[in-house]
C-alpha cells in the first residue's frame, strides 16, 4: 500500500466516524475485492462470500469507533472478515444442509477470468478438488492457508490478523499443506502428469 493510500484511509475513516456515509462507501469500494476474496477462500461459495463480505463491512462500520488510528485498516477488516467466516463455518458445520457444497453455484455472476481453454478446464478440475480438500480442513488451518495462498500475506501479517504467534502460523501452515497434499494426492498427480 502506498503511503498516500494510508493517508487517504485515515481521512476517510475520520469522516466516516463523524457519520459521513459517503466516506465509508468509498472505503468499502477500496477494500471490497480483498475482503470478498478472503471470504470466498474461507467458505468456497459465492453466496456465503457475498453475505460475509457485507456482514464484515456492516460490522466494521458499527465498530469503527474502536479502530485505532495509525493501525492498518485492511488488516483490521481482514480480522473481522476471518472471524465472521470462522463463525459462519462453525454454524454451517452444525446445520449443514445437503447440497450446499462448493461448486453447486457455477457462478452466473462470475465473469470468466482470462484463462486459456486448457487452463479453464484444469481450473475447473483441480479447482473442485482443491475446494473440496479445503472444505475438509479444520477451519483454523483453513484460515491460515487461505490468508497465505489467496491473500499472499507474510507469516507476520497472518499472525497479526489471527492474533496468534508467528511460530503457530508456520506450524499450522505446515499441517494444512500436509493434509491438503494427502487428500489431493490423486488429482495433483494427474495434473502434473
Amino acid at each position: 500500500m502506498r503511503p498516500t493510500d494510508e493517508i487517504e484511509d485515515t481521512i476517510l475513516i475520520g469522516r466516516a466516524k463523524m457519520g459521513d456515509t459517503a466516506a465509508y462507501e468509498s472505503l468499502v469500494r477500496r477494500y471490497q475485492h480483498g475482503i470478498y476474496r478472503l471470504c470466498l477462500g474461507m467458505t468456497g461459495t459465492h453466496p456465503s462470500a457475498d453475505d460475509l463480505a457485507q456482514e464484515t463491512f456492516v460490522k466494521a462500520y458499527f465498530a469503527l469507533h474502536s479502530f485505532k488510528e495509525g493501525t492498518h485498516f485492511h488488516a483490521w477488516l481482514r480480522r473481522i472478515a476471518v472471524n465472521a467466516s470462522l463463525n459462519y463455518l462453525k454454524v454451517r458445520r452444525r446445520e449443514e444442509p445437503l447440497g450446499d457444497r462448493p461448486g453447486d453455484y457455477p457462478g452466473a455472476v462470475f465473469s470468466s477470468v482470462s484463462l486459456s481453454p486448457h487452463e479453464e478446464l484444469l481450473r475447473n478440475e483441480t479447482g473442485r478438488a482443491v475446494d473440496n480438500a479445503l472444505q475438509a480442513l479444520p477451519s483454523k488451518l483453513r484460515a491460515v492457508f487461505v490468508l497465505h495462498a489467496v491473500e499472499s500475506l507474510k507469516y507476520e501479517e497472518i499472525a497479526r490478523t489471527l492474533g496468534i504467534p508467528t511460530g503457530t502460523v508456520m506450524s499450522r501452515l505446515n499441517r494444512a499443506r500436509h493434509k491438503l497434499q494427502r487428500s489431493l494426492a490423486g488429482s495433483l498427480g494427474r495434473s502434473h502428469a
Partner: protein
Amino acid sequence: MRHAQVRHLLGAYYDGELDKSRTAKIDEHLKSCGPCRQDLGRLAALETSARLSVPAEPGEAYWESLPSRVMSGIGEARRSVRSKEDTMFQDSFFVYDRNLRTKAFVLPLSIIVHALVIIGLVAIPLLNTRNLPQVEIISAFLAPPTPAPPPPPPPAAKKRSSSRTARIKPVQAQEKFQTGKLVAPVVIPDQIAEEKLSDVGIEGGVEGGVEGGVVGGVLGGVVGGILGGVVGEVEAPVRAVGNIKPPKLIKEVAPEYPEIARQARVEGVVIIEATTDIYGRVISWKVLRSIPLLDQAAIDAVKQWVYEPMVISGRPRGVIFTVTVRFKLK
C-alpha cells in the same frame, strides 16, 4: 541441519520466510537430499493448484452493487435497532439512560455499599458482645440441677387443745448436772407440782387471777404478760435439731419467679438457713444451697415469712432452721 528439521522448515523456506543463514543451510541440504527436493516440488504444485482453484471473481456489476448494498445494510441495521427499541419501550415512561460512565461508576459503588451493609450486620454483633441478652449466656452455664429431694413434710400441726407447755422440750435434758454448780431446773417433777400448787396459791387469790388456774397457763408467767419483755434477756436462737422442730409457718409469701430465670428455664431448689426472732419473724438468712438466678427471689420471699414464736422453758426463743424454696416452671 538434520533432515527432519529441514522438512519442518521447508514450507517457510518455500515462502521465503527464513533468515539468510537458515536459507543457506537448507540450500546446502537440498543439494544432497532427493526426498526434500521432491517435497519442495509438491509444495510448488499445491501452491499453483490452490491459486488456480480460487473461483473467478464476479464482474464489475457486482463490485458496483456491493458498496451500496453494504450502506443499505448499515441503514437497515440502524433502523432495526431503533425500531426494536421504539416498539419495546414506546409505552414506557422510563427514559433509557445511555450514560455508560455513570453505570460503570454506580455498579461497583452499589456492590461496595452492599458489602459494607452485610459486614456491618455480621461483624458489629460479633465485636460488641456486651449488648447481647445475658439470659442466653447464663443459660449456657447452668446445667439443669439435679432434682432436689422433696422437702421434709412440715411438722404435723398440733392440736389446738394442746397447751403451749406441751411444745416446750428440754434442750439440755441430756446434759449431766455438775455437782456444786447451780443449774436452772428444766424439768418439772410431777410430785413437786402438787406441792407447788398448795404453796403458790395465795390466800384470797390474786387480783385478776382465775380460780382454779388457767388451763394452758404459763408457769411463772405473769398474767397479762410483760409488754416488750426485758431488753437483754432475749436468749440466742436455738437450732432446730433433734427434738426441736422447725416452727410453724403463719404467714407465707410466695416467691416471685425471676423473669430472667424463667427465660433461661432455670428451676430447682434453694435451701436457706433462716433465723427467726422471738416473735417468729425472719431476721437473718444464709443460703445453703444456691441457684444464682433464684437466690434473691427466695430470700425476698423468706424475709417476709412469719413463724409461730418458739417458746422454750417459758421463754420465747429465736430458732435457726432450714427452709426449702422450690422453683418449678409450669
